[in-house]
């Protein structure tokens, strides 16, 4: 087991796709799709696509719904609202920016929910929520 390093406000976070292996990412992504996207999604083929890491070139096979949300739903004005709970809101930020790593402060600047400290406490603890974890 790797040593736990306590993240700080300077630590960058992103979605770790390997955390989702064996878990139902599709089901979680379905909850993030906008109403218009849901109609579109009915016509989408099932399956995955090769998601490319924007910095390292590493490839992860990710559910195609990610791409749908990234290209369509993120442009909708109600993609992240005042009523979107904190963790889904953070997750949606990473879908929108194609999983580019961000610090809690940078996430706060986008979602304006709680505070950078609360965001850090939420995603920087020992419990991993929805695969959002520090970039090591």
């Amino acid at each position, binding site marked *: 087991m790797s040593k736990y390093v306590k993240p700080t406000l300077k630590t960058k976070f992103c979605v770790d796709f390997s955390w989702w292996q064996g878990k139902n990412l599709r089901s979680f992504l379905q909850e993030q799709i906008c109403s218009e996207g849901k109609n579109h999604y009915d016509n989408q083929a099932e399956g*995955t*696509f*090769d*998601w*490319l890491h*924007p*910095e*390292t*070139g*590493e*490839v*992860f*096979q990710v559910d*195609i719904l990610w*791409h749908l949300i990234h*290209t369509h739903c993120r442009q909708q004005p109600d993609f992240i609202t005042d009523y979107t709970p904190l963790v889904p809101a953070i997750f949606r930020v990473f879908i929108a920016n194609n999983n580019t790593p961000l610090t809690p402060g940078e996430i706060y600047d986008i979602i304006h929910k709680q505070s950078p400290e609360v965001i850090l406490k939420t995603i920087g603890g020992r419990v991993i929520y929805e695969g959002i974890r520090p970039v090591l």
Partner: protein
Amino acid sequence: MQRKTQSPTFWQEQFELNRDSVDLIYNQIVEENRILALNDLALALIQHYYKAEEQELISRQDGRIYRPTEQFAVGDKVVFPQFNFETGIVESVRAGKHPQYEKFNVISVSFKTGQAAREFVADFEYDHPLNQREWQSLADLQGVMSPEEIYQKYGKIIRAKIKAALKNHTDFVDFHDSFFLKDLLPDFHEGLFNIADAAIDINSHPLDIDNLIEQMQLAKEQEITEITRFSVNYHLANDARFSDVGPLGQVAWYLKRLQPEDAEFLIPRLEIKQERYNSAKFSQDLRNLLAEIDDEFTNLEDISAVGLNTEKVTILLNHPHWRSGTLPITPKTASFFPTSRYNHVLFEFVDGRTGNAFPAWKVLNSNYVFGLNQWYKKNKLPVGAYLTLQRTDNPLRVIINFRPTRTQRGWVRQASVVDNKLIFKMMPEAIGCEYDELMMVGEANSVAIDTLWTRAKERNTPVFEVLCHVFAELAKLNPQSTVHVKTLYTAVNIIRRGAPGVIFQELVNHACFTPMNNGYWSYNPNAAN
């Protein structure tokens, strides 16, 4: 491979001056035959580590650098700079699938470390940051810090480690963070330093190093070399008779026997224990008053800083400094006084009324200047007097003044000791300057007060206890029984050194104290327990 020069852990925790590094410094001094500054040594050492690491990278390169645009085949060795230069072997190649991109491949790569194979994009002709880089070899890798950048980032800790190691090494000698070899120092006859002693004594003022070298007849002014300067400085610094009293960037040699004892030791009456406060709990009113008191133990962020472009500042003479003949160094006053990180500094105050200059000292590692005792007494300045500091063209001369008024006899608070207890009375006193009446508390019997001070120090009396006592006594002088926080600060400091923030914190934290208006507080002794 982990580039250790890029890692904070290496410089902060692992880096130590090993035998090779010491030899490197030794040889550099021998080859260049000059004094080397600690900064230069640190940069040279970083460059040495950096180059050695590059050589190692070149020798270890075992495969092609990974770029998404490249084509790879099964069995190819690939180096991944983004993963600490891990080398992997291509196990398989498959067609990629992405709604946005057409033809590209995905390679599956296994790493030596035995972890599960990972996939990477290949034959990818679209934009990707890794495609932009013109990498030919590991040693060319961009995105790593240069030696200069490493120095900028970790220079402070690297310098400290080099300094500590070389100071313990008998081959090296140092003066003001510059190093040389002991064996290369010229020999001086001991008598020469007697001449230096006499020269300073006759001059009655510090002498700079070139002046001393000339008087010691070691060289004429235009012939003085850096090695001669360094060698004489080094000898003088290690001779108990001499004392460097120059500000940062200057060396000025003086005689220890001519300087006051307090030049090298902290004044006990100004010492304070580790007592912290947090002004976040204070009202705006209290925060403003905190800045007005001009105490060196007020947190830096609670006093507005004054820069070099401000010619003159006014400060309040508070009790601890009135008693010690000193002035505090705070963000407000710091830029007026010379300083040094190596030694205490001798400078001059110039009396703004008479033009007479008198010596003053900035004690090493202290946050006050001293030398004002006689000046305070001569001008009969009370606690709370308004003083002004004014710059001159010479950073070693500071004009000090007060605001004289026609001498008036008024009623002021006066502290005295009765039955081993501090009490306060209103007494008539003649004062000839402007002062803050709220800060003003006179002393009737300093010897008896000193006895109380010593006892409080020995007993380590808490601020709260002293505060309760002086509050109850001061309240007797006012029909409303309220006391201003500035008066409380002065009264506490008569028998126990306490920062204003710490005293305010006690007021805020205890229910027995109640804030009234404009800085006045009331006290309920029954609630003190």
